[in-house]
């Protein structure tokens, strides 16, 4: 009857193998006893409980989101008001902004670190780290990850990477400043710019540790999903969140190692006099001795990770949105199998399109054509998913809750940003559009903001499970509307600027006649960016206050959204081990939203057995 796993805390390296050992009825009980005796450090700092680790990832991610967001406020001040000075800049940036006007060097540094931390630390570590950790064991019915110890290491590697990246902001020569892609030769030659010095070394060290963290986490997620599902939780009964996390982890495990190779070669170029990426470079009129390397090689290696990376960011958001849309529209997800196949299709295609970031590097137009074809193919699974989301809410009994609004916003932004991807994926158009604000607009909408909306949907939806309390609804609504409208106000005009040829990464456009016409538009964008930034502080405030002050869930309201999935069968505040008694068995798929023949509600949870006298057996 029971399929109790042996408890992870006592035999964590074995229980994957012993998942079918039965009869551990009192393990849960033992375990609670054990937890009371745990030292604060083991419980909250070096915790091996996936729920604590997920919150560690989330809060670290929030720290980085604020830091990275603040950086964008600073450089938007420069871009929107190139002639003015701001006291706040000299307060925060000190000598980098003497008299309230930022140096070009720190402008590039801020742009670089903004990109790096938001892509890797917030939308990879903070998104996948939080929700894969939190939801995989809870939704598949496991007591913890396959290896809680590796899971803890995964977080602490991330934390150390974070500290090093943060420290790089304070070194004398400034942080890495060659853009988040850190292309050589700028990143390879210490003499090339201020940020190419120690800042770049710290960047590489931090990223290497981040890769280790991502590997440890990813291996754990994959194995946990494959090996540790509870009885009855077949693959086709998995919630779509889990499918998304599984393929996200596969993407990470197979693409990050290539970035590691790229980083190793870059480190040798920086410190050992090699010429992997370097050939015939002049710095300040001085010829460098390196001959024969290829800067394009680095770009290939980087984008072999870099492209899958955007799906590492998107897939978890897609999974979360699927779950939230179905739950809050009170309808089964439309096209479950099409959704799974689409995730698989995106995963495979993600590895085959990297060179579309490099159309203008002088690659053969024929090769470019192949990459155009493969890139445009991604539109198919993406469109299938969008169609299924829209069909899921079609004629649904939509509850406009906080998470639902963010999930709807996610779909909207994914469509808007996805369509411009079709423009950019075309190598002929890309000759004109590459490296302009069109690209900035495209990727910020499709993988920046829309992934953030997926993440917000997830936080609002699962906050009650994380802390046993609700977040404040009104603040949530304000947060949503300001962010949603603000996101479009910020990024929509950038498309026009990009089509007009306005290049990214420039420090000041006022001296170009062709771009100074956008001066007022840039002002408006900057003002909107500042407002949106402060709206995010509202979210952070809501989050932390609700941890202690939010409306408490009771046993009766322990499933506040009427979800079908297993995490809501745990106690309001589950301990380490998640279920006090046996792990529930699963009898049906994850989206059984219909009239419940047992209690008259509009959903049936996954652990409700099928009574053939009351319903068909085919569910």
């Amino acid at each position: 009857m029971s399929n109790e796993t042996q408890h992870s805390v006592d035999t964590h390296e074995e229980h994957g193998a012993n998942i079918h050992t039965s009869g551990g009825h009192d393990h849960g009980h033992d375990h609670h006893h054990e937890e009371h005796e745990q030292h604060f450090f083991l419980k909250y700092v070096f915790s091996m409980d996936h729920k604590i680790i997920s919150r560690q990832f989330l809060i670290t991610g929030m720290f980085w989101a604020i830091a990275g967001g603040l950086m964008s406020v600073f450089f938007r001040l420069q871009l929107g008001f190139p002639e003015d000075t701001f006291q706040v800049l000299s307060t925060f940036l000190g000598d980098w902004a003497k008299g309230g006007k930022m140096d070009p060097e720190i402008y590039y540094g801020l742009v670089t670190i903004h990109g790096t931390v938001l892509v890797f630390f917030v939308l990879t570590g903070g998104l996948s780290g939080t929700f894969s950790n939190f939801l995989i064991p809870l939704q598949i019915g496991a007591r913890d990850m396959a290896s809680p110890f590796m899971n803890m290491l995964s977080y602490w590697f991330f934390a150390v990477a974070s500290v090093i990246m943060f420290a790089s902001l304070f070194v004398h020569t400034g942080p890495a400043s060659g853009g988040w892609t850190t292309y050589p030769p700028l990143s390879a030659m210490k003499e090339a710019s201020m940020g190419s010095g120690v800042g770049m070394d710290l960047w590489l060290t931090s990223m290497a540790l981040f890769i280790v963290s991502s590997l440890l986490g990813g291996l754990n997620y994959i194995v946990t999903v494959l090996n540790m599902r509870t009885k009855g939780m077949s693959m086709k009964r998995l919630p779509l969140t889990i499918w998304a996390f599984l393929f996200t982890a596969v993407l990470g495990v197979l693409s990050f190692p290539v970035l590691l190779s790229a980083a190793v070669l870059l480190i040798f170029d920086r410190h050992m006099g090699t010429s992997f990426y370097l050939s015939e470079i002049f710095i300040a009129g001085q010829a460098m001795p390196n001959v024969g390397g290829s800067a394009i090689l680095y770009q290939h290696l980087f984008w072999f990770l870099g492209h899958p990376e955007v799906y590492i960011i998107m897939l978890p958001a897609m999974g979360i949105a699927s779950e939230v849309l179905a739950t809050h529209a009170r309808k089964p997800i439309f096209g479950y199998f099409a959704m799974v196949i689409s995730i698989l299709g995106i995963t495979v295609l993600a590895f085959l399109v990297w060179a579309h970031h490099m159309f203008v590097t002088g690659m053969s137009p024929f090769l470019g054509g192949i990459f155009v074809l493969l890139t445009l193919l991604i539109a198919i699974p993406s469109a299938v998913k969008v169609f299924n989301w829209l069909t899921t809410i079609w004629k649904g009994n939509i509850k406009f809750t906080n998470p639902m609004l963010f999930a709807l916003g996610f779909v909207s932004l994914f469509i808007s940003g996805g369509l411009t991807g079709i423009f950019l994926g075309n190598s002929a158009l890309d000759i004109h559009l590459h490296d302009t604000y069109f690209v900035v607009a495209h990727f910020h909408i499709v993988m920046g903001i829309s992934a953030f909306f997926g993440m917000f949907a997830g936080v609002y939806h699962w906050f009650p499970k994380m802390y046993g309390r609700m977040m404040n609804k009104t603040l949530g609504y304000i947060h949503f509307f300001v962010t949603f409208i603000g996101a479009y106000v910020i990024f929509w005009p950038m498309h026009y600027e990009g089509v007009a040829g306005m290049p990214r990464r420039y420090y000041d456009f006022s001296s170009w006649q062709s771009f100074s016409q956008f001066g007022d538009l840039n002002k408006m964008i900057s003002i909107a960016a500042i407002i949106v930034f402060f709206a995010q502080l509202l979210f952070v405030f809501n989050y932390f206050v609700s941890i202690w002050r939010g409306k408490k869930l009771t046993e009766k309201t322990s499933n506040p959204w009427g979800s079908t999935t297993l995490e809501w069968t745990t106690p309001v505040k589950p301990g380490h081990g998640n279920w006090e008694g046996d792990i529930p068995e699963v009898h049906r798929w994850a989206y059984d939203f219909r009239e419940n023949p047992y209690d008259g509600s509009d959903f049936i949870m996954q652990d409700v057995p099928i009574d053939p006298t009351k319903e068909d057996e085919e569910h």
Partner: protein
Amino acid sequence: MSTAAVADSKSKWMGGESPFHLSYGKIMMWFFLMSDAFTFGAFLISYGTIRFASPIWPDPNMVFKAFPFAGHANLPLMFVSLMTFILILSSVTMVLAVHAGHCRDKKGVVKWMLWTILGGIAFLSCQAWEWWHLNHEGAWWGAFRDGMDLTPVKGFFAGTVSATDLVVHGADSAHKFFNFFFTITGFHGFHVFSGVVFNIMILVFTMNGVFDRKGHYEWVEKCGLYWHFVDLVWVFVFTCFYLL
């Protein structure tokens, strides 16, 4: 019979058990090795890219012709063949250690693990000698970068390379060849080294009876997977640098 098999395979994915009847640790090891294969793959593809863009390339028969204590005898690829043979032998002894583990034969595991560790150390020593020898000839990361003087690199090229090519590209090609050689064999050597460390840990655990108490020798198997992978990688590294 066949229907029974189908039904069986269906139920394996129904949850409550491992679908492959494998422990999580072994699946994790397989995925890790896949990940590591991508790291090495990226290195070797980078090597290929740079090499095929290069008009001339050092000839392995000329670069790797020394043998310890053999003076200046011309023995192309003899030493690396020995190294490779040692590493493959250590894979054989690893298979025997894993087999002994399956039979819960503690003595057997200890014996074959010891041989495997010895093989690994022998390989690493050979590599150290080869590196030392090449370094003695002036090769290192970044060597020959600023070289206008062709004397040190001339000996690395086959006699068929034209004098003009040698003058124009000789130093650069040698520079690139050794950059990749030391990086990739170094990265592989680092894997062998960590493999030896794991194997020593396994050996100590075995001798202390840890696996007898656990009731199985699965850790030996996991280390075995890693060890064979590292050997397999060597086959590719060997092919790229010494044969092609």
